[in-house]
């Protein structure tokens, strides 16, 4: 009898929760899962609604399968994250126009397409070459000079000759295994697409999408990739995963790390207390004094949702309420994409991104103009082979050029 009563109570609670309405949000940053759930629970209480958060991360294959399954089942979330133009197109039919939302005027990085706003920027993130300032000081290298290929080459050579004194295994912590294709074929690839160009300039992207390859730019980029691979620890480069890559930097075994500010919590967990910041990528002969900063993903509201008003309020409250600010900046440790928020993230690399941003020295993220198919299944193997030394730099350039031409034909 007791058991039946208990089952009945659970059922009651479930229906009560259901009766009060349900707002579902699917997002792609598992690292902030606990924080967003806590915030959503509080927010839900105030607005008399149950907010269900589903967090699924990973590469471009991460959230996609679940979203597709839910779409096929007619159970799309009310709010869902997408990362850029290619995935916007995938869901174009159900994404609501958010141009009239109050937060639009407070951000410069919202997702826009044909002049309309469709995506709420989740945060601002950036990557460059994260460096260990203590080790650079010991080697007598000024990070401010690291703005082009030649400067990096000289610095890498010097650091490589001082391995013993500095106690490092390799100069740069780089990963190029297939599992880490997002480091090479997403992030590093972007150097080719946007380094040295005005923010939002798509000239190189459009040329490459049309199959027109600027060989000079590609050659210089190949030099840069070669430099990174040459001075990387081969074990981490060829077989390392995210932990191995970040770990080498966190423990002072590498001077540079090819990652973004999202590694802050990992570095904190590894007790990395040395001074660190970002330097620009040296993918070109000319000086490129800026790092890559943008919103990594956007929240879209499902047009067919029954809770459009609530979903809009949820997003708006993130920007306009102190609770929303605390969640985004203090709890989740993100750099807010909106003006009028006076909190600052604690991580050193996040602060560095903010400084570059404030100085206006930023380049855009253009990798999302290429499909996940192209990046993960065409480019990743090319980088992987170059890293393994099974193809030469000349072959790397040829394969890249051919990949763009083939892609344009599709």
């Amino acid at each position: 009898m007791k058991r039946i009563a208990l089952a009945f109570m659970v059922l009651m609670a479930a229906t009560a929760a259901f009766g009060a309405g349900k707002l579902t949000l699917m997002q792609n940053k598992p690292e902030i899962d606990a924080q967003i759930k806590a915030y959503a629970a509080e927010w839900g209480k105030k607005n008399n609604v149950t907010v269900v958060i589903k967090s699924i991360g990973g590469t471009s294959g991460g959230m996609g399968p679940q979203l597709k399954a839910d779409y096929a089942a007619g159970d799309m979330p009310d709010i869902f994250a997408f990362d850029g133009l290619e995935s916007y197109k995938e869901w174009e039919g159900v994404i609501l126009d958010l141009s009239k939302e109050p937060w639009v005027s407070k951000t410069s990085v919202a997702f826009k397409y044909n002049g309309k706003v469709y995506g709420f920027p989740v945060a601002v993130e950036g990557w460059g070459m994260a460096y260990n300032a203590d080790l650079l000081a010991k080697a007598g290298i000024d990070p401010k000079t690291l703005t082009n290929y030649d400067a990096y080459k000289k610095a890498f050579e010097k650091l490589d000759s001082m391995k013993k004194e500095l106690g490092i295994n390799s100069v740069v912590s780089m990963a190029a295994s297939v599992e880490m294709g997002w480091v090479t074929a997403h992030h590093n690839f972007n150097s080719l697409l946007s380094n040295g160009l005005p923010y939002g300039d798509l000239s190189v992207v459009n040329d490459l999408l049309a199959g027109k390859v600027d060989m000079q730019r590609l050659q210089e980029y190949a030099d840069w990739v070669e430099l990174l691979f040459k001075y990387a620890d081969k074990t981490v480069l060829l077989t390392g995963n995210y932990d191995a890559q970040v770990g080498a930097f966190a423990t002072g075994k590498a001077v540079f790390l090819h990652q973004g500010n999202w590694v802050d919590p990992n570095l904190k967990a590894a007790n990395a207390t040395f001074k660190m910041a970002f330097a620009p990528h040296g993918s070109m002969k000319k000086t490129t004094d800026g790092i890559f900063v943008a919103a990594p993903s956007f929240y879209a509201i499902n047009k067919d949702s029954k809770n459009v008003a609530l979903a809009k309020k949820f997003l708006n409250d993130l920007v306009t309420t102190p609770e929303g600010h605390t969640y985004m900046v203090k709890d989740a440790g993100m750099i807010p994409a909106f003006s009028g928020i006076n909190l600052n993230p604690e991580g050193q690399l996040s602060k560095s991104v903010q400084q570059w941003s404030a100085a206006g020295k930023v380049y855009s993220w253009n990798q999302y103009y290429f499909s996940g198919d192209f990046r993960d299944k065409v480019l990743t193997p090319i980088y992987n082979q170059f890293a393994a030394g099974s193809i030469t730099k000349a072959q790397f350039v040829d394969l890249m050029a051919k990949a763009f031409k083939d892609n344009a034909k599709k």
Partner: protein
Amino acid sequence: MTKKTESSLVFWVFLAPVLFAFIMVMVIPFFLGSYYAFTNWSSSARVDGGLRFVGLQNFAESFRDPAFLYSFGITFAYTILNMIAINVVAFALALLVTGELRLKNVYRVGFFVPNLIGGLILGYIWQFIFNNAIPSLGRIIPVLGFLANPGNLMLSKNTSALAAMIVVGTWQYAGYIMMIYVAAIENIPQELLEAAKIDGATPWIRLKSITIPLCAQAFTVTMFLTLVNSFKQFDVNVSLTSGGPSTMLMGQPILGTELLALNIYNTAFISNKLSVAQARAFVFFFVLAIISIIQVYVNKKREIEL
């Protein structure tokens, strides 16, 4: 109600739950999937995304894709090598734990336990062993110094990475197959072995002429299980190599250890070509069905011969 209708009623009532589940999650999706393989289905809200019938286009595209052809080849290679490795190891272990050995029950459990660990976790554990444990062994023991050389990492080349997958597959599955062999070996009448022994048969002759022929039924089962399991390998593939390292085929850089199941998954969810993936899954099913029918037929024939 007559006894007969009652028993048939009971039969169907007991069968209903399983039948319901089977129809819902196997039969219906199978036919739906076969249908989608001939369309441009994408399960997304693309503006131009109406469902259209495209004939054999998805199949044609698949067979022109070097990555898919390569996956086919490498899956066959993996399946054959893995079948041999698992069965040889499992049979050897079975002989060991049915012999005169102290603590043999402990060994049986020990060999079986890896089977209880999920493939994904197993892949990550072995990734650590191949990438960290083995190189550090090389650093500690001078004779094995070559292991510490990054050029010798098993997962850094596609051929040795495939071998690594076989090592993990065998480690995971040999214990389970061993149990089937143990049951078969224990069912062999002892008097046959004893008689042979008295007649002066060496252990090798006893194994070759008595034990192996009398395990023929077990071979049919184990061959089938290892064949199907190796062919469908997915989880260890994902977590151990993610399909890498890459290699070249027909002038195109492709993933070097991407087995068919992973290729289908990647086609569906990374390349966003669900209907093409459906077509590939259909081919996959068809090929696997044919191979396993042939295998069972051949083994059954042998059962009678032996």
